[in-house]
């Protein structure tokens, strides 16, 4: 299905909302199973926190949410327009924001 010609505007896998929902539900299912597996697999641990129920899942989730919110907050301080360094710099005033790319390629 994915190998169809580029020109055809046929439906691809993620074009349908149903498929996206399926993938997400699959992820929910996996998460639930992984959480439940803790009851069945004996875990040896080096650190006492590791022994807490759901430590790794909770840590992973909270870490990522915290990471994203912190990064978003950083944007307020660090984000600048794309031509920030070009503006006012004599060395980089040339208007070429083209990335190096296909120009070195034969054919």
């Amino acid at each position, binding site marked *: 299905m*994915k*190998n169809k010609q*580029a*020109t055809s505007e046929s439906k*691809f896998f*993620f*074009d349908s909302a149903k498929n996206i929902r399926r993938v997400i539900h699959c*992820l*929910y299912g*996996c*998460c639930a199973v*992984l*959480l439940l*597996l*803790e009851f069945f*697999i004996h*875990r040896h*641990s*080096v*650190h006492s926190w*590791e022994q807490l129920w759901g430590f*790794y*899942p*909770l*840590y*992973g*989730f*909270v*870490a*990522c*949410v915290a*990471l*994203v*919110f*912190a*990064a*978003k907050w*950083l*944007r307020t301080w*660090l*984000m*600048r*327009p*794309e031509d*920030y*360094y070009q503006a006012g*710099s004599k*060395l*980089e005033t040339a208007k*070429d*924001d*083209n*990335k*190096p*790319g*296909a*120009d*070195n*390629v*034969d054919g």
Partner: protein
Amino acid sequence: MWMAELPAFVPFFIAALLAALSRGVLRATIMLVVPIIGAIQLYLLPETVTVQVVFFDYQLMPYRVDKLSLMFGYLFHLAALIAIIYSLHVRDTLQQVVALLYAGSALGAVFAGDLLTLFVFWECLAFSSVFLIWAGRTQRAYAAGMRYLLVQVLSGLLLLAGAVFYVHDKGTLQFTYLGLQGAAGWLIFIALGIKCAFPMLHNWLTDAYPEATVTGTVLLSAFTTKVAIYALARGYPGTELLVYIGAAMTCFPIFFAVIENDLRRVLAYSMINQLGFMVVGIGIGTALAVNGAIAHAFNDVIFKGLLFMAMGAVLQMTGRINGSDLGGLYKTMPKTTLLCIIGAASISAFPLFSGFVSKSMVMVAALENNFNGVWLLLLFASAGVFHHAGIKIPYFAFFAHDAGLRVSDPPNNMLLAMLIAAVLCIAIGVYPAALYALLPYELAYSPYDATHILTQTQLLFFSALAFVWLNLRGYYPPELRAINLDTDWFYRRFFAAVIVSVFARLTRLDRAIRRHVMAVVYRCLNLLARSNNEGGVLFSRSRPIGSMVMWVAVLLAAYLFISFVEHF
């Protein structure tokens, strides 16, 4: 026997010369054959080889093979081969010759047994690699390459200064354990730190790598930083400071990676994050930790190379690399998508992929040696790396919103290079014993036990869950056409502004002094002019010669009169 004593960089340098003189199929063949022959030569070597020469009063060791350097030797041959296959379609003599010189310099550096040889190859690395950035042939690439070169050369000079102090203290140049003792220890430490992208010294990497050519970035990602990791593992194992530096390296880049738009720059930040794991391992210094660091360096070259190759393919085919301009490419680039996902799974350390078998060694070592806080940071970084490199890279390039780009998969040679890397990622993940056998310390370690697999999978799946939740809720920061300030702001803006204002002041001062001096000069000139010009008392130009003659006549008359009066 002569083969054993032929240093590993020599075939690459000879090949660079031959490649410069040949073209087409012959050049491609030379470039492909060299890493293969070189690797075979390394394989046939006896366990340890040292070549020594006497240079003035010092014993130099330009070629030293032991288990540690051999590991990196294999790695660099492999990386060179993959990168050369990836760039077979390129018709650019400069890039092709420089690629061989660069790989050769990296080999020279890891097999250098003394600090002077290390310095020489250290600078060769800088001067060869910068051409891979300049080969972009844009003003941006030129400026970024210049900044890169300045930082690299600074690192080399610090290394040289450190070597001078070292030979003064110890009387030898041999490169063994150094430790943070005295000026030599610190200077070399900072020199390595620059190349290894320590926090605050890291910005050359994220500034320059994304400006290099499609194929150049793949090469760059393999060598420079890994040479620094090798040198740290040789000179500073067990230096506790490295644990904290490494922990910082794993954490701070992921914030930048989340908000960065240029996907190759995201990978550059992610590279610092991976280097952090290696630096922590070297800092802990136990056999398990150092083995883990080196194994991770090996895996990182392959999976980071794979990710850079996938993003290079996207850039090559679409001409775009910003997350805000991409999306939906899975429809027409299915092979690249799949290969990229394998790279993403490897860097995220999914079980059965290569990152898992090496990263877990460092994590376990951190816990066993009571670095609990560091362990928590590493765990945070593990979740974070999955977030930005594991999900963000494939998601924004190949899925997300459809940008309407309908380009095909890249040329076959690029796909082949990516395939080799992907197969290695899985092969090492499935059968880590092959990798462990190459490690410098004998160690029985098995990454695959139920606890490890379960906890790591939980961590990753719940990170993915967080990504989904944030996206569905609309909390996820959108990819914006913008750049983010990093420490390069200090030298591109702050120092530039300071220097401009200092020079503006100096110019004003200079102008004032000149004005003052000129005023004095003019006053003198005026004085002279006044005395010479019309109406001037003494030497006025306008006084006729006749008046002088008259005055002479008056004087003579007076003289005559006086002498006449005297005679009476």
